[in-house]
């Protein structure tokens, strides 16, 4: 089984710890993982902003970079959704990458068949299901099942969990007032849980919500699911 990590551009440049955690987690589960260096960005920002022509070279590059791998693992629901839902519009070769591409929790639960990944994370955690993972991929209970199996972790439900956090890529910049209002409500809900950690499976959303948490001095930190699942008693998080 040849498995490649599609770390995503945001994780590569801003959240490498999520990439490192994904590698450690997969290796701990006995998966040999590769990082094809030709990968960059899936093209979602361009595509969703209406720049289809500018998206094309990135789609071609991504398809080439992961050629020959049985599985491509992505620690981001929205990038996985881009590949699976929008790549078919770029031709049959691009379409063929979709079924081989798995968001991290899909890969763990569906391909590896595990929910207890042997993690230890002694914190109170609440989970925000990002929209594209929730609605386009239909991740359902997978992330929560993985979190519930983590030793020491107390999972508390996030009120209004299924509501968008207000990031939305260029939406946050084009409609800053509405985006901030949505983010403020998400932050208030997260704070109301009394959790110390807001977990998500999409760092772009966490960049937005985490940035607001930090600005408001809220007693929560935004942490990517991969980092929680990679954490063990021997090698704890941070």
């Amino acid at each position: 089984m040849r498995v490649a990590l599609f770390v995503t551009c945001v994780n590569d440049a801003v959240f490498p710890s999520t990439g490192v955690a994904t590698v450690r987690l997969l290796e701990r589960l006995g998966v040999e993982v590769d990082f094809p260096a030709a990968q960059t960005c899936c093209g979602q920002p361009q595509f969703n902003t209406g720049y289809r022509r500018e998206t094309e070279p990135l789609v071609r590059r991504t398809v080439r970079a992961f050629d020959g791998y049985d599985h491509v693992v992505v620690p981001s629901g929205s990038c996985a959704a881009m590949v699976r839902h929008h790549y078919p519009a770029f031709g049959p070769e691009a379409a063929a990458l979709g079924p081989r591409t798995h968001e991290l929790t899909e890969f763990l639960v569906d391909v590896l068949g595990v929910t207890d990944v042997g993690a230890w994370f002694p914190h109170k955690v609440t989970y925000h299901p990002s929209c594209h993972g929730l609605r386009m991929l239909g991740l359902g209970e997978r992330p929560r099942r993985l979190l519930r199996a983590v030793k020491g972790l107390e999972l508390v439900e996030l009120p209004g969990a299924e509501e968008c956090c207000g990031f939305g890529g260029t939406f946050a910049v084009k409609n800053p007032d509405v985006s901030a209002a949505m983010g403020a409500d998400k932050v208030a809900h997260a704070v109301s849980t009394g959790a110390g950690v807001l977990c998500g499976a999409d760092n772009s959303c966490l960049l937005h919500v985490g940035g607001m948490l930090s600005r408001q001095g809220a007693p929560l930190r935004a942490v990517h699911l991969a980092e929680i699942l990679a954490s063990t008693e021997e090698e704890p998080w941070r």
Partner: protein
Amino acid sequence: MSGVFVGMPAFPEAVRSAVRDERLRRNLRHATHTIRDKRARAVAELADWAELREAGKRIKDRTLRHLDAHLLRLEEAVTASGGTVHWAADSDEANRIVADLVKATGETEVVKVKSMATQEIGLNEHLEAEGIRAYETDLAELIVQLGEDRPSHILVPAIHRNRGEIRDIFRDTMGRWGRPAPEGLSDSPAELAEAARLHLREKFLRAKVGVSGANFMVAETGTLVVVESEGNGRMCLTLPETLISVVGVEKVVPEWRDLEVFLQTLPRSSTAERMNPYTSMWTGTTDADGPKTFHLVLLDNGRTDALADEVGRQALRCIRCSACLNVCPVYERAGGHAYGSVYPGPIGAILTPQLRGTASEVDASLPYASSLCGACYEVCPVAIDIPEVLVHLREKVAGQGGKGHRLEKAAMKAAGWVLDHPGVLAAGERLASKTRGLHPRKLPGPGARQWTDHRDLPGLPTEPFRDWWKKNRPADPPGDRA
């Protein structure tokens, strides 16, 4: 579309006051969440919801593919049953037809059933200019009309008002339009409804001309269908001597049995009711029962332009249930007025730019008035993939290169070039990481400043992931790793 909205600022500017209006935010949040939850329960009761949704989608798609044939069949059936059909290419033509028809009766007043199409064309304003007074009889439309306000929701046009505000509007304005509000009117829903009932009854009994839209038109029989909850529609459709219905061409369904699907999905999606309270159906005219004269004005007004767009045409499936508004996180914060059209929310964001084009600032900004969260698509009873159409329309807007889009395109091109050259990307990432101590907490420039107004930037890492990989996973054959 209606002149009422001409000169609206772009969506991001138009929302600014709404986002800061605490009372409006509370009203909207309470109302949308209440309807949203009720809808979810009503839909969950049906085991075959997914099939009904698929059937609705297919009926509409099939109809739209042969729209011309179905409309001609409809015209024939309506004419055969005593009605007269008029064709209106745009709002001006439709307004002119209706005004002439009213004038021909010699009347100067009409009563109206709630109708999106007549609002779209600005009929009330046009009739007013022609010396004809149009009375809205739907409770919420009455509130909007008396308050000299604009509707902010398709189904609940006064959703932005709470009952205290409504009491004040009734007390202050009803007398100017007809029967005044009762003395000592309170803000209890029952008293408010009674005040409206008394005020409207006078109009129903006096009016000789009724104006309506329709939710559906059955081509097979020439039957029009109006779905409402208050009974005001039934009054307007049966008491006047002349009935004029203005209906968008996409409202036609081929056969009577097609209604079976929509009369299940529409009430559950809109008001969360299992069955609609007042469903009025009429076929032309009938001797000694109902209006003696019936006119149907078939309205295009940009619909055939939308139909010509292979991606965008799915917006014409819309049955105006407004489920997408009630789940939309953007609508909930922005309110309906910012959308600059009688069609607010997600459906408005894809319908308005197709009906009106994207020349004006507000229309060009509508496709961006969404975070693409997909909640609208999930609840749509005719499966309109609203995010897909939004992205498609963004492509059109970006392609026309208007305000800000030339710079954006250049930025996208530059970013695309970097992302297509991993070596350059890595060098940039390294430079950013090395200089991270120098990065300011607040950034200048459009976009960046708005981001840091509300959010801290993350501290950049010491190295990008690709460098960590290179150092920690040297290029040994995968099997040799510990």
